[in-house]
């Protein structure tokens, strides 16, 4: 698999003339070996992109739902090596963009270059590492990510200054992960005027990278609000809650309820 093919999976998806739905789940939850099955089910359910959560003991930016699924995944025995071995043949059955989302420490312990190399071998297209700061990435890790054809996705929030958003836009190569509000994941149940005007303010900046909104999207209504100005939206906690109730049997019902 060449670098170009990898680069293109996210970028090509972003070119499609539709609003994108991306789903996050914690790998190893509900059961250790559900990972591949969840990914395959999500692709069959018309999801555009998947964020595979690499569980961490101390997920600072996550609310109770993702914390609990992450803790349970670790109890189930999930490790970085196990996740990679589960995903080793994923590209035989799945063609949508796959992104690994995880905190920096487990990646640092694996070895950043070894981790990126493994991602390329598997066919992972990008990484989201909330606690890897933009400047550290830029100075120390950018060349490694590029060598293995991985897009690193950065976050912005309602508090991020215009100047910093421009900077983040300038070093981004796929999309910008737009955090909907000052909140950890799973924290809201609807968007108000404050969010809508923030979504519009960012849209009006005409950034070179499309934006995908995350945090606080759980229903068809919030999906529509989030994507009124942005290219797509990411759902995490609400999907995990759905898994809690229904396990793997009704994934398409969930995605239909969001997209209908």
């Amino acid at each position, binding site marked *: 698999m060449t670098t170009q093919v990898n680069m293109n999976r996210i970028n090509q998806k972003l070119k499609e003339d539709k609003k994108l739905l991306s789903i996050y789940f914690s790998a190893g939850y509900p059961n250790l070996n559900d990972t591949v099955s969840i990914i395959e089910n999500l692709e069959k359910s018309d999801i555009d992109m998947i964020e595979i959560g690499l569980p961490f003991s101390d997920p600072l930016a996550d609310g109770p739902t993702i914390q609990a699924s992450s803790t349970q995944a670790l109890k189930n025995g999930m490790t970085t090596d196990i996740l990679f071995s589960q995903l080793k043949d994923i590209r035989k059955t799945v063609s949508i963009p796959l992104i690994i989302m995880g905190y920096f420490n487990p990646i640092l312990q*694996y070895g950043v270059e070894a981790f990126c190399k493994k991602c390329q071998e598997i066919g992972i297209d990008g990484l989201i590492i909330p*606690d890897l700061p933009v400047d550290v990435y830029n100075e120390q890790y950018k060349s490694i990510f590029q060598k293995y054809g991985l897009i690193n996705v950065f976050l912005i*929030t309602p508090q991020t200054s215009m100047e910093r958003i421009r900077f983040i836009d300038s070093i981004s190569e796929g999309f910008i992960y737009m955090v909907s509000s000052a909140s950890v994941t799973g924290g809201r149940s609807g968007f108000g005027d404050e969010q809508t005007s923030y979504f519009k303010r960012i849209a009006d900046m005409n950034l070179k990278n499309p934006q995908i909104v995350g945090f606080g999207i759980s229903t068809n209504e919030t999906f529509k609000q989030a994507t009124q100005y942005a290219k797509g939206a990411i759902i995490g906690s609400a999907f995990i809650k759905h898994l809690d109730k229904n396990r793997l049997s009704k994934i398409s019902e969930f995605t239909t309820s969001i997209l209908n």
Partner: protein
Amino acid sequence: MTYNINDEGYYGEFGGAYIPEMLYPNVEELRQNYLKIMAEPSFKEEFDQLLKDYVGRPSPLYFAKRLSEKYTTKIYLKREDLNHTGAHKVNNTIGQILMAKRLGKTRIIAETGAGQHGVATATVCALMGIKCIVYMGEIDITRQAPNVARMKMLGAEVRPALSGSRTLKDATNEAIRDWINNPVDTHYIIGSVVGPHPYPDMVARFQAIVSKEIQWQLKDKEGTTKPNYVIACVGGGSNAAGAYYHYLDDTDVKLIAVEAAGKGIHSGESAATSVLGREGIIHGSKTLLMQTNDGQITEPYSISAGLDYPGVGPMHAHLYKSGRAEFISITDDQAMTAGLELSQLEGIIPAIESSHAFAVFEQKTFKPDDIVVINLSGRGDKDLQNYIEHFKL
């Protein structure tokens, strides 16, 4: 070579600010302002005045005659145990509450393990009439009931951390999440020299009063500002950072850091981070921390709740890696014995954290004319139940 922080916020290779973008504006606001604010004459004046009249500084530098005789060396105790609220923690909370006021913050959050930092934070919030929320692990809330009551009496809200192992590291996670949810009006008073830059440096500067006083106090007593050794216990490392601060780059003064070995370094129940830890990221800082091969942060153990942290501040990681400080690990039993000895030789019951530092005298021999300053970081009242159980008093 300097052992202090560089312009990028690192001690050697340790430190930095590994934080999610959601925290960037808060941390950046602090980073841009903390040195400026600390340099303002009105800040200095208010800080100094409160340390003097409210905390009771300077804390005495006491020559421990009987302890010195027993170990045939000259031992001075820096009496941080005599501070208001019973430990060095208040030096930092006074500084940070003044910082928060100048940044226009109206709501304070803090994490606490044993409750000492929580009490010190609740105290200064009461003093300033600012709303205070303290996160504390659910397990610690039951273990440390008297400090929970103190915080409540001081008007603070104590919120249980229900995630993970429900102890200090999880209380810290919860406080960080609160800050993400409240980025505008809230200041987070971290209790140790941990967390993202500028916290380790800011907290070290507020605690630096300890070594500043040692310098002139020792000059009065011994005619020199320089002891041969400074000894302090290290959990996150704030009392050690304060005791070392003005000696960091003066290698005539040897630094000894004492960690909690719990039930034995390799017993699986230990907090000896320098031995058991590897480089990694915890609470926004690159430092040494106890973790699995897979990078999951593990739960430490010590009889002393104040040393029960899976990392050390980045300053200490650098002091360890560079060899500037000698790290010694002390077990629960050794610490308890040293605490009893200090009580009966000097009439001072130390906090169990500080007892770890005193246990060094059984591990290491000093020369008769060595001047050894040991930071007695806190008093033992809060630990009485532990002492009672350990010695069947």
